[in-house]
């Protein structure tokens, strides 16, 4: 149920509803290497956009750049109409990182980690409110970890850990949910459950930006696909037309991909 | 330490030489509690609660202020009466820490900084000068007489007897060190400033007041040159200090090493000695090293 037009949201005319995410000309260097070059990305309310592309094409870097985790060399990002630099209303943002990052010296339970997803919504002082706890428990329920909520995250299986991170992002009840390979290591049942959850969120107006290699159960909820190749947008259009199986470079060469991007249109 | 201090009159001292003095002057009237000398390691300058209680409960405390931080704090905290606390620093005249011996170290302009804190800059090893020990013995006698007037005469007599022995020691040093081929002693750390001052010797310390400080290479080279040019043939080391610094200088100059005891405490090897016998050992060692007649 996309609200804004799929292919060129925000660029069409001033009368359209303000896009949730508007990124223009994003250019990122990592370790002295040019990783993204002039990438544009727009996301409307209730839209689900999948970022596709080969390993190392720059998908994670792109989503990290639009939420401010990676510094840009050039380009601008607006979230809900506010430039990223001045964007304070962080509760509207949820993020699921690729692979887990948080291994720390003190144990923390699933519930504690998920509750930390409420951070941006909590009043500054005092313990978590009832609403916070309820939202966290609801998120845990959604990923099916309720029986494990008192378990330290270090004692989870890979997929359980991944689902904990999904729950943490859901707990903040975001209007823009950014997920970097959320299905990696997650079993089929949980994948379908996630697809249902994303469907419900979208119905309530949440926009979703996700990175995946294989959309699997999420295929049906995705409105639009953006294919990244060598740090550039190679395709931006309807999901069913995305050249997922074809944009990849031969593993042995160092040259740019040979497939010519066909912006705005599927090649399959 | 038994803590309470009620089970008999006690005197607390902060170092072995003071313990020696009090034991001689107080005779059997007071038990002497010598606080274990805290080591130089930063973390362990700490007294046990019993020792703090001893400091509070003791009839008399004999120490040198600004020498052991932990003890200073305990004394300050105990809030003792003035006449039951003997700071020997006020009795004898303490020398500034000797800086000249390290030529090439000029701290002239930096001195200002230290003026507000009188902690540094003072050399506590006054007990190596028998004459200053006489003053300390008399002061202890007077204090004991004041807090225990019943036995005042005994304390005075004991103090005078000790002073006589110290005078003899002083005389022996004066005579023993009169005719020497050399008037320079090279020591492991600069503990012997008072001794050198009293008997017209020049001390070349390899390390500063803290025996654990690492010497600089240029300083070692400089001392080696000094040793060679002064014709020194013996480099002194200490029982409780690693001899390697002294040995390095000795090796570099072809000198030999011998032991000079700063008498900061008794070790296992010197358990049977006392202050007087240790001082005489030191005298013999210097006479031999400096080839005195």
């Amino acid at each position, binding site marked *: 149920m996309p609200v804004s037009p799929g292919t060129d949201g925000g660029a069409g005319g001033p009368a359209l509803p303000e896009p949730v995410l508007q990124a223009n000309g994003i250019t990122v260097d990592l370790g002295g290497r040019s990783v993204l070059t002039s990438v544009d990305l727009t996301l409307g309310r209730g839209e689900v956009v999948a970022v596709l592309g080969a390993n190392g094409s720059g998908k994670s870097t792109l989503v990290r750049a639009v*939420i401010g*985790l990676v510094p840009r060399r050039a380009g601008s990002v607006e979230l809900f109409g506010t430039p990223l630099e001045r964007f*304070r209303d962080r509760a509207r943002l949820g993020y699921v990182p690729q692979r887990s990052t948080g291994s720390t010296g003190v*144990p923390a339970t699933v519930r504690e980690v998920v509750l930390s997803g409420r951070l941006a919504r909590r009043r500054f002082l005092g313990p978590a409110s009832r609403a916070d706890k309820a939202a966290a428990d609801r998120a845990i329920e959604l990923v099916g970890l309720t029986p494990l909520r008192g378990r330290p995250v270090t004692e989870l299986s890979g997929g359980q850990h991944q689902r904990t991170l999904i729950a943490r992002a859901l707990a903040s009840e975001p209007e823009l949910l950014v997920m970097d390979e959320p299905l990696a290591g997650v079993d089929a049942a949980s994948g379908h459950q996630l697809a249902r959850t994303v469907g419900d969120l979208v119905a309530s107006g949440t926009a979703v930006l996700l990175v995946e290699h294989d959309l699997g159960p999420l295929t049906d909820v995705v409105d639009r696909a953006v294919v990244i190749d060598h740090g550039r947008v190679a395709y931006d259009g309807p999901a069913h037309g995305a050249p997922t199986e074809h944009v990849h470079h031969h593993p042995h060469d160092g040259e740019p991909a040979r497939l010519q991007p066909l912006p705005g249109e599927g090649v399959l | 330490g038994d803590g309470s201090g009620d089970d008999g009159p006690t005197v607390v001292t902060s170092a072995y030489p003071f313990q020696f003095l009090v034991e001689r002057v107080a005779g059997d009237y007071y038990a002497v509690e010598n606080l274990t000398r805290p080591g130089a390691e930063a*973390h362990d300058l700490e*007294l046990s609660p019993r020792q*703090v209680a001893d400091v509070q409960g003791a009839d008399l405390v004999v120490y040198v202020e600004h020498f052991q931080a932990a003890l200073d704090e305990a004394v300050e905290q105990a809030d003792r009466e003035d006449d039951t606390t003997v700071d020997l620093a006020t009795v004898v005249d303490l020398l500034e820490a000797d800086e000249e011996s390290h030529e090439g170290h000029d701290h002239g302009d930096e001195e200002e900084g230290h003026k507000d804190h009188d902690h540094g800059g003072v050399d506590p090893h006054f007990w190596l000068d028998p004459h200053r020990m006489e003053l300390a013995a008399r002061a202890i006698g007077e204090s004991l007489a004041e807090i225990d007037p019943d036995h005042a005469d005994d304390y005075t007599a004991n103090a005078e007897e000790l002073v006589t022995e110290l005078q003899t020691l002083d005389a022996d040093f004066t005579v023993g060190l009169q005719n020497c081929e050399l008037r320079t002693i090279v020591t492991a750390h600069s503990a012997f400033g008072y001794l050198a001052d009293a008997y017209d010797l020049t001390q070349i310390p390899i390390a500063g007041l803290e025996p654990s400080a690492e010497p600089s290479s240029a300083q070692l080279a400089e001392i080696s040159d000094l040793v060679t040019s002064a014709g020194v043939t013996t480099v002194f080391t200490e029982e409780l200090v690693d001899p390697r610094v002294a040995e390095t200088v000795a090796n570099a100059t072809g000198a030999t090493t011998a032991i000079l005891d700063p008498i900061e405490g008794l070790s296992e090897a010197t358990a049977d000695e006392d202050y007087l016998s240790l001082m005489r050992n030191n005298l013999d060692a210097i006479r031999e090293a400096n080839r005195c007649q």
Partner: protein
Amino acid sequence: MLELLDYPFMRLALAAAVITGVTAPAIGTFLVQRRLALLGDGIGHVALTGVALGLLTGTAPLLTAVVAATLGALAIELLRTYARTSGDVALAMLFYGGLAGGVMLINFAGDSAAKLNSYLFGSIVTVTSSDLITVAILGGLVLAVVLAATPQLFAVCQDEDHARVSGVPVRLYGILIAVLAAVTITVAMRTVGLLLVSALMVVPVAAAQQVSRSFRGTHLLAILLGLLAAVGGVVASFEIDTQPGPTIVLMALAFFAVLAGVRGVVALTGRWRGRPLESG
């Protein structure tokens, strides 16, 4: 045992023990979470340089020590962020830099700085009432910040990226933790001793981890164990006539050993064995 309360210094020591025992693990838990368990000791080394600098320049050494310690804590955050160094390496550089710098400066400052340790190292049985006030104010401050900002601090230590996305000024909180730790250590080392405060930041947390499974549980249990070790250590040091600092530390280590043992026995005898597997 009540005999020890006859001595005013023991009453002061117990009060200082209560404050330190509670404050040190309260902030220390976050250090352990960030894998900076040895920050306390590192700060101590840098404070030494600060004292030497103070002596050289004629500034109050305690002030320069606090400044140096705070700068050191900032340096660690910067090294972690901008140079390719992990926390332990950044700490090591602070250690050795602080120590080498201190030793060199002392050398320049001359013999008069030899007693510089006395600026730095206090002992819990020689705490004065004005010391106690300082420690209490500082402890209250640290506890207040920790209580107020636990969710933020937890998030920052748990997953920096996520905290950043949640709008937490990550670097600011990282610096807050480091500076709180630095100030606590510098002030406390002067009143109750470095060994005591830096050990109480880590050992009770390690002990609590043995049996606790949640962050909150670990945090609270660590504070409780810190309190018990501090008070128990002061009492024990009085009874068995030892220095209170090491006694407290050894008591905390004993807690660790006991709890690790409990955990080992429970795991081995399989008290939980056969318990139905929770599904997920």
